[in-house]
């Protein structure tokens, strides 16, 4: 039974269910309170659409008005004159870098945790605690994760990951540090996506694999993981959208430099060790609440950011629609 067929059947059942009481309902079966309730439901539902439409249209209008090639392709500069402050090329690169870094750390860890939770989960109390622990990470404010990350990365032990001052004080702010904390934000999404995919694989598929003489570890490796690929992809893409949209971690952990400023001498690693900015911190700094106060640039950057996040969500939709596996 495919999902769409069940859905259609449910819709038919709903229509039938709604048609029946209509025949027997008399005028006074709908009291004034009931009518108000239904009216409220309609009002709230329509308000949601209106708010979403207003935000989309306003952001598109403002974004398209202020965006141009120059602003995307030039680096930000510190200047008192608004026309010389440049664009936001570095923040775009920063966002992409941080998103990829965070997802690269979160995906393997998240998949491993999800496999343990669904396939092993022994001892059961420990598994339940880990489940609750993931909920705690979901609920933990990103600003708290951020300053905890700062506390960790300022320890001497982690000095290779960021800039160390003359006196031996570790700066603790870098792409590495921010990426590591961002991976925590993405982790619950990866775990959730993978668990959902693993749970949807019927038991007999596992049993068939055992019957062929494979042990549990190789069943996971050869059978379960390949079939939950789309769930893993969904989870990490959702996690990437979260990372791209997070501001608090960037404000605390990426340093306040406008440009990407590499530290050290090893190419590639120097960028990760250095500080920078992302679209979110750029929007924050250029809003009236920040130091830049250039609403036009903030709108343009926010438009790029919103497009990126929506694109990631569209990818998720596509994966879930295409990757749905039907088990016989």
């Amino acid at each position: 039974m495919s999902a769409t067929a069940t859905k259609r059947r449910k819709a038919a059942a709903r229509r039938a269910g709604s048609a029946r009481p209509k025949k027997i309902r008399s005028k006074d079966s709908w009291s004034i309170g009931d009518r108000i309730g239904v009216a409220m439901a309609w009002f709230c539902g329509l308000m949601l659409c209106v708010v979403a439409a207003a935000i989309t249209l306003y952001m598109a209008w403002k974004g398209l008005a202020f965006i141009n090639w120059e602003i995307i392709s030039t680096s930000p500069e510190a200047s008192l004159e608004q026309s010389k402050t440049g664009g936001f090329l570095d923040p775009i690169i920063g966002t992409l870098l941080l998103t990829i870094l965070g997802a690269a750390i979160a995906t393997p860890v998240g998949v491993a945790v999800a496999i343990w939770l669904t396939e092993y989960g022994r001892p059961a109390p420990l598994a339940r605690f880990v489940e609750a622990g993931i909920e705690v990470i979901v609920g933990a404010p990103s600003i708290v994760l951020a300053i905890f990350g700062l506390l960790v990365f300022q320890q001497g032990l982690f000095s290779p990951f960021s800039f160390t001052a003359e006196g031996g004080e570790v700066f603790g702010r870098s792409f590495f540090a921010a990426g590591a904390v961002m991976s925590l934000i993405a982790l619950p999404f990866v775990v959730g996506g993978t668990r959902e995919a693993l749970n949807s694989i019927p038991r007999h598929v596992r049993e068939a694999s055992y019957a062929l003489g494979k042990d549990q570890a190789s069943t996971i490796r050869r059978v379960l993981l390949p079939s939950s690929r789309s769930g893993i992809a969904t989870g990490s893409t959702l996690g990437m959208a979260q990372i791209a949209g997070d501001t608090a971690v960037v404000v605390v952990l990426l340093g306040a430099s406008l440009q990407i400023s590499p530290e050290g001498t090893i190419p590639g690693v120097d960028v990760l060790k250095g500080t920078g900015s992302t679209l979110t911190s750029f929007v924050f700094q250029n809003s009236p609440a920040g130091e830049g106060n250039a609403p036009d640039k903030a709108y343009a950057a926010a438009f790029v950011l919103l497009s990126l996040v929506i694109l990631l969500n569209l990818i998720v939709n596509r994966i879930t629609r295409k990757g749905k596996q039907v088990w016989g």
Partner: protein
Amino acid sequence: MDEQYLGIFDESDDKSKNEHPTNRRVELMLGALASLILVFIAGMVIFVFLKGLPSLAGNGISWFGGGGNVDEQLTNIFNSPAEPEDYVYELSAFPLLWSTFLIAFIAVCIATVVSIFSSIFIVEFAPRPLERILEPVVKFLAAIPSVIYGLLGILILVPWINNTLITEEMRVSVRYVIQLDGTSVLAGVIILTIMILPIMIAIITDSLRAVPRVWSEGALALGVNRWRALRTVSLRAIRPAIVAAAVLATARALGEAIMLAMVTGSIGFAPNPFDGFLFFLEPSRPLAATIVDGAEGLSVEPFGQTMYAFAFILIISTAFLSFAGWAARKSLSRYSIGAK
């Protein structure tokens, strides 16, 4: 391939699933990795607590009390002398705590009502095409980064409140206490409500859909109308889900930092609800936003410790709420509604 075929005839095979040394090793490794999450959370709570302890210990119970201007106190802490024995810790954080509670509480109250009605609409009353639009709409609202909400708030909502809702009389009446400029509790509450709605709607619609159809059909067969059946049967069945949604949304609301730092005015002031509607228009600043504002000063030792004390309060309360929400959702799965 051969090995696998031979495996079928291996007599010990049905046991090998559990006893194979590689398999055992894989299980242990994955389990250890998963347990690291617990170690991490414990470590986070302990380290943040230890770092914030001097601030809490330096004030004792008056840390949670009111009295004095919290912004002046924070400035004094920031400017305290460099010698560790001269550090200033004096702080009465009540305005910040009150503001955190007030904004989160009002937003969650409004969002609970709105999300229940919206979920009912989506599940039961929306025409097919509208239902199909609403699903991506909710996802879209959930996906918008908080900094964009903050930007829209500070550039549209705040000026609107300043020009339309705040009258000259109001400005004059509180001019010796606080300056009204549109950045306010109201702006924070409105946007926060929109931000937490999608999570609540997602949880409530999921469980409404999972209520067995026959239950409400039974009610319909007894002659009540659709609204009554929904209210008396489905809505009652999913009460734990509503609690879970509200609790998880509270955790989210307490932790929201960037948006509130942008629109609530960043002034450590405790608006008094007994002032009538005016208190909605007064600026305020919750804990999380205070940490964002103080991010630059984290390296100043006593100031940083104060910020970690704030973080400790936040992590403890959100951890407790997340745990409660998780437990409430678990209790639903006993009736196989919304087991997730």
